């Protein structure tokens, strides 16, 4: 079957070969063999001639040397007969044509010639190795020596005729042999070439036919050698070519079909892409407008504060003139102090994202700006913060409103305080005033002195407790934060209350396992639990059950309830009663200070406010659920290990009777009555008292008498100079000054600072007189006094 290739010519491309391989090979081999034959014809006889000539030269030289040796004594002794005998021996070799012995003068001593040719050759002789003109005689010479002395020269000629004849004969034989070998070689080579190239010719013929399009042709495989293998391989290749041709035609058809389909698909894709690009442009435009017209100020900045992008709202909120002005500025300048931005970013590194984060920033004109912001960090593969994206909402107006509202609330609270707590204080003061009048009366029953004084003291302590609760609510009380096991605290509270509460009230506890410690002030936590339990008791006038449970909750779970919960874990305390419950209206106000539903005289309205304040100071939360008639549940959530340790002031409780002393004490106190009280009390204990009513007077007095003053009690809130300044000035006058501060309201930070300055102690007002005695002796009796 003949198949046409429309894309190929019907013959092998390229010029036709001018000579077949066979002819070229035959010519090459013939040339080679001819060259070899010529080489043999010319070179071999030449070599043989040269070798024979060398042999003859050697032979002639040997004869000459031997004869020269033999003739030496003859020449020395002039013995011609002996010379003849020596010549005779040399002439035994039939090739010698002449032999002559010369003395040193060149005169022939003896000579022998074989015919005229010998004489002519001798006369032609010029030097050793000479060949006669007709090439028939080779002449050589040898010195004749006697006892090492040269007597003369022996010259000898030897015939080359036999050599020439031998060479002639050899050359003829070699010529004939070369010709015969050449002819035989040509015949053999031609035969081999013909046999070898015949299959190749067949293959070439087949290739030409296949090239013309006849793929049905196959090369004959006549041998099993390389050419046979070539033919087989060629046939196999043609088979594959045939298959490939068929497959190619099929693939071409498929390809055309696929190209057509793909073209259509591409057209569809182009249309879709154009539509997508149009949609993207619209989306980008929307996003840009959204970004630009967003109410919040949006920005992107690096961790160094370089602002990379912002919208027009950001420009407006921060009071810049343009976006370019923002980009030329630095984010750090918008924070209220140098490290505020770094603090924010550090917080971001921990939480990766800050949601609804309240902050105070600065506008371009340095005015204060209150914002609520969402800040998202971008981190690299190694977790490093590289970029910050922020959405800032200007909350200044709302914050101002809140402050005003808070101020109004505070004023309302103060009003409530006046209405609520004034009653308690009036009662306390009435008790004190009443009993004091009895003590001062003329008809005083001295037997009742002790009881009346104790009543006055109890009333004063009640007033002191009331003040402490107020301070705790205001978060100005001095606290001692420590690791606390809530289960231990609850156990203590339950144990104490079980004895004091009515017997109709029962406690049920359910402590969770592996509840972790929290950071809190022990007394505050105690007070908190006490307040919750008292409220529960008051909600169950007919008795009931107070159930207290503890446990641990994951931060992620709590965040579903309280989004601001940031800690990873929380410990909770759940206090449940089955009392009257709280209605919705009341529940919205229960944490307000001085708000109470109890009858006047039974509650201060500070209980739950204190609970709220304590939980807030510990970064915790309080949740309340209640149903009227069913009961109420308060749940306290404490962050695990994320509480903040604050300064500690350990106030020792009265402990036994304390001795007085005879040292000189300086009392710095602006309350005259209190000074009189201390003078009376401490004087009775044996001390010598000095007093000053303000700071300047105290310094003057201390300058004059500090050698005699062993102890100084300084009120913090003094006219002219504060108690802290008084202490520092005294310390300059006397670095070893021993002083104790007293105050009813001191900032923890101030107390920390004074402790660091070396103050010997702190007495909270109102103080117990016995407490003062103990403190004085404690300071004076300290090892370094």
């Amino acid at each position, binding site marked *: 079957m003949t198949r046409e290739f429309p894309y190929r010519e019907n013959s092998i491309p390229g010029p036709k070969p001018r000579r077949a391989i066979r002819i070229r090979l035959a010519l090459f081999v013939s040339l080679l063999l001819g060259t070899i034959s010529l080489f043999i014809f010319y070179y071999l006889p030449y070599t043989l001639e040269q070798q024979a000539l060398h042999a003859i030269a050697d032979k002639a030289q040997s004869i000459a040397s031997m004869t020269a040796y033999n003739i*030496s004594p*003859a020449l020395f*002794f002039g*013995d011609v007969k*002996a010379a003849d005998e020596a010549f005779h021996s040399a002439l035994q070799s039939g090739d010698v044509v002449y032999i002559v012995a010369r003395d040193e003068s060149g005169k022939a001593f003896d000579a022998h010639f074989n015919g005229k040719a010998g004489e002519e050759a001798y006369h032609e002789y010029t030097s050793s190795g000479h060949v006669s003109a007709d090439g028939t005689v080779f002449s050589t010479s040898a010195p004749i020596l006697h006892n090492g002395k040269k007597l003369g020269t022996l010259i000898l000629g030897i015939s080359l005729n036999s050599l020439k004849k031998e060479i002639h004969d050899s050359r003829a034989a070699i010529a004939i042999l070369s010709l015969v070998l050449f002819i035989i070689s040509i015949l053999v080579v031609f035969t081999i070439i013909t046999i070898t190239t015949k299959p190749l010719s067949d293959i070439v013929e087949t290739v030409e036919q296949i090239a013309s399009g006849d793929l049905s042709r196959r090369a004959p495989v006549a041998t099993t050698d390389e050419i046979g293998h070539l033919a087989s391989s060629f046939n196999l290749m043609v088979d594959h070519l045939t298959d490939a041709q068929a497959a190619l035609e099929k693939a071409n058809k498929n390809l055309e079909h696929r190209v057509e389909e793909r073209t259509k698909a591409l057209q569809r894709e182009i249309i879709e892409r154009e539509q997508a690009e149009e949609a993207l442009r619209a989306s980008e435009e929307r996003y840009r407008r959204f970004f630009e017209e967003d109410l919040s100020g949006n920005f992107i900045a690096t961790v160094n504060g370089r602002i990379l992008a912002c919208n027009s709202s950001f420009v407006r909120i921060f009071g810049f003139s343009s976006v370019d002005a923002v980009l030329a500025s630095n984010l750090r300048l918008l924070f209220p102090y140098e490290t505020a931005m770094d603090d924010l970013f550090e917080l971001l590194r921990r939480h990766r994202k800050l949601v609804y984060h309240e902050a105070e920033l600065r506008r371009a004109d340095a005015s204060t700006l209150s914002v609520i912001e969402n800040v998202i960090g971008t981190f690299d593969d190694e977790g490093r913060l590289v970029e910050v994206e922020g959405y800032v909402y200007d909350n200044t107006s709302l914050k101002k409103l809140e402050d005003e509202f808070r101020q109004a609330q505070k004023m309302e609270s103060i009003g409530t305080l006046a209405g609520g707590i004034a009653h308690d204080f009036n009662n306390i003061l009435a008790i004190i005033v009443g009993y004091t009048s009895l003590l001062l009366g003329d008809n005083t029953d001295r037997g009742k002195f002790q009881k009346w004084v104790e009543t006055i003291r109890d009333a004063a302590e009640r007033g002191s407790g009331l003040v402490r609760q107020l301070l705790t609510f205001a978060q100005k009380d001095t606290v001692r934060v420590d690791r606390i096991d809530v289960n231990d605290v609850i156990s203590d509270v339950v144990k104490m209350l079980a004895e004091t509460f009515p017997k109709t009230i029962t406690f049920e506890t359910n402590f969770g396992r592996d509840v972790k410690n929290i950071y809190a002030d022990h007394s505050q936590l105690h007070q908190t639990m006490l307040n919750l339990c008292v409220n529960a008791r008051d909600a169950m006038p007919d008795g009931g059950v107070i159930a207290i449970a503890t446990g641990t909750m994951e931060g992620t779970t709590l965040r579903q309830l309280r989004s601001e919960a940031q800690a990873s874990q929380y410990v909770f305390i759940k206090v449940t009663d089955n009392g009257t419950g709280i209605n919705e209206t009341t529940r919205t106000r229960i944490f307000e200070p001085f708000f109470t539903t109890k009858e006047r005289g039974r509650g201060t309205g500070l209980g739950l406010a204190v609970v709220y304040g304590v939980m807030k100071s510990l970064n915790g939360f309080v949740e309340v659920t209640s149903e009227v008639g069913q009961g109420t549940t308060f749940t306290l959530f404490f962050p695990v290990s994320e509480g903040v340790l604050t300064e500690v002031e350990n106030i020792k409780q009265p402990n036994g009777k304390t001795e007085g002393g005879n040292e000189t004490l300086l009392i710095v106190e602006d309350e005259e009555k209190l000074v009189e009280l201390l003078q009376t009390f401490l004087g009775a204990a044996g001390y010598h008292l000095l007093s000053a009513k303000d700071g300047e007077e105290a310094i003057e007095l201390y300058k004059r008498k500090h050698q005699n003053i062993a102890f100084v009690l300084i009120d913090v809130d003094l006219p002219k100079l504060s108690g802290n300044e008084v202490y520092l000035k005294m310390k300059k006058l006397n670095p070893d000054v021993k002083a104790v501060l007293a105050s009813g309201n001191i900032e923890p930070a101030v107390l920390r600072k004074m402790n660091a300055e070396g103050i010997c102690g702190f007495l909270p007002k109102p103080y117990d007189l016995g407490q003062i005695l103990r403190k004085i002796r404690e300071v004076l009796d300290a090892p370094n006094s």
Partner: protein
Amino acid sequence: MAVPVEVQYPLFLKIVTFDRNFQARVGQEVAVGILYQSEYRKSFNVRNTLIDIINNFPLHNIDGIPIRYVSIDMSVETDLRAAIEREKINLMYVAPLRAADIAAITEASREKHVLTLTGVPDYADAGISVSIDVRGDKPLIVINLPEAKAEGADFDAQLLKLAKVIQ
């Protein structure tokens, strides 16, 4: 004598063959005269030793010419020329002699063409043609060439090449 008589004798037999005139000199018989002094013991002993050697030597000819020897006692012989002629002597061996006139002996030998031979090296310079000396541990032939030619000898150059030649 430098060389024993046992060594001298074979050498003399070979030396005389290098004389191209040997055949003409000796004719049909090689007649060797042994010149000695019976009164001189050393000379007499040499004469006796030589005779023993000649008698016991396996070869009794030179180139096929038979050898005959004659003793000539110089102690009693007064006329050497007469003795040579009488005994037809053609070779004469001279033994060690005491107070002998060598010149007179060589004069007679030249006159009668008798080739003189001796084992006493000193006699070569005095005129004896062929003598045997020693060089190292080998015998050395000493030829007084003028005296030899005078006594009618024609020595081959090959012999002369081997010998010490006194010209």
